């Protein structure tokens, strides 16, 4: 049972991220929502690679005869984090441009393009 807790956390993080994307009107909060979503997905990948009692998959000074966790999901997760940094930086910079041009970061008022 306790092994499933990370998956519950994954679902909760994703649900929270979706909630803030759908209902929060502030662009910074939307950026936070994206980060939450990303955190949930990354946690999911990491949890997939975990083996009970495993150590970090590095041979340097590793203890003898101990199981190691799967390294591939960690590599995937790292890639996803790097992409996430780029995404967040981009969202925040565009939010800054929008604030300069529109004078607001409320999504209700940032809708000149519609119809």
């Amino acid at each position, binding site marked *: 049972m306790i092994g499933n807790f990370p998956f519950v956390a994954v679902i909760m993080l994703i649900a929270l991220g979706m909630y803030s994307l759908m209902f929060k009107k502030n662009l910074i909060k939307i950026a936070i929502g994206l980060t939450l979503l990303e955190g949930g997905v990354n946690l999911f990948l990491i949890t997939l690679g975990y083996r009970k009692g495993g150590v970090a998959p590095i041979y340097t000074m590793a203890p003898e005869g101990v199981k190691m966790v799967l390294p591939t999901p960690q590599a995937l997760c790292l890639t996803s984090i790097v992409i996430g940094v780029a995404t967040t930086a981009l*969202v925040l910079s565009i939010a800054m441009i929008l604030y300069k041009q529109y004078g607001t970061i409320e999504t209700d008022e940032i809708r000149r393009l519609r119809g």
Partner: protein
Amino acid sequence: MNGILMHAPALVIALPLLAAFVTPILGRFNYKKISWFVSAVFGVTLLLTLLMAGQILTNGTIVYVFGGGEAGLALPSGYTFPIRIIFQIDAMGIFMALITAVISFLAAVYSISYMEDYSGVDKYYTLLLLLATSMFGMELTGDIFNFFVFFEISSISSVALISFRSTFNGEPAEAAIKYMVISSISALMVLFAIGLFYGQYGTLNMAAIASFMQFTKLDKMALILFLTMLAMKSGAVPMHMWTPDAYSEAPSAITVVLVATSQASLYALFRIIFSLYNVTLNTVTVGWILIILGVLSMFIGVTMAVIQKDIKRLMAYHSISQTGYMLLGVGVGLAVLANPAALASYGIKAMEGGIFHIINNALYKGLLFLTAGALFYRTGTRDLNKMGGLAHNMSYTTLFYIIGAAAIAGIPPFNGFASKLIIYESVYQFNPLLAIIAMLVSILTLASFVKIFHSAFLGPQLEQYKSVQEVPKSMVFAMAVLSIIIIFFGLFPNLIVKYIVHPAVMALINQSHYTSTILGGM
């Protein structure tokens, strides 16, 4: 020569990628010449893609193992499934890569004049090269995580390109942030689905996943995520709202590449449905989901287009509606996939129509967006109410616009007619109502393009546009090349269907071939 051919899959990715980073440094020495450099790089990429296409259409699928001891060695001895990143290029992949190569080359050529007066052009070209690289990656890769990485690169670089003109007003930034939020959601959900695959099968290679596929509950969930997110990225109604925003605010040369990007997403959707799942999934249900999305896209897209006043927004709604045709054609093929008799009698034809429509749409939609860019370049506005009588001054643009509009409306002998005819006739055998809706949409398409033609090109010469001239040569060149390809495709559609489209469709349908090229004989 042989070496170049062997390494062509890697070079197609590596050349634009390296050029993307050389461009800013080159821009320090000779700012004016970088546009020519970028066009040359895209020209070489186009040549490489053509070489690869010739190779694939004669000899079959190419496999390229990155970092492996040998290019074609997917399974080193002792392995049951591949572990390295593999490019697996079959007829469908090269079909999409050809579209990408042609469109991005012409976009770069068009940009030579179009972007001349902007500052920061070196960054523009870096992002354009990255966008093209990511599209090639999405289309050629055989590794699903690699696909995710290229998917994200494509959304990040296209967002930066959409917001390129945001120093003048806020609208490009608004479009960009909408697109960014939407595409981040889709990319993260795709990553979640990839995690579901990895958790079950322990591999990321698409051919290996396809051979292990059980269609468990988790696979079902992954399918739903892929289906929704990739349909959204290709602009299917009712998840299409980002499309008109992003397409209308991006610089015109970029809009053309964005059309190709959303088609790369569409390709990924088809690839995942057909090559990963194939008949294991409930083909009738998923096929009907695609058909309903397609019909909604066609109809709502075109009716929204009729009432638009912004020329590029109008065209953007049309690209939604054209995506509907592709979804309809391929959806019909998918719905009868488990029924060999129906598949042979009209399913394959419907898919041929849908896939043929992808390349046709890229060509004429590209041409139309380029003409819209030409109008914007000379008049400085996208508002149709402020235009009029431009045919007096811009005769070439008018001619190209007529060709593009006739092609998208499905008027013979242009290419749009050929693919639409295949779709109508094969879909009619599946369900007559769908074919009737498709024809109605085609009529409305013509109506809305007549609207642009009337309000922008016809009428008396306006006072403020008296001194307007024809656009510069590089823009005319890009539009002329597209027009010539459109006319050629319209006059000889059978050649295209026989040599390019039909192998692509068979590559999609034939899943065992896809898996056996990597995993050996089954």
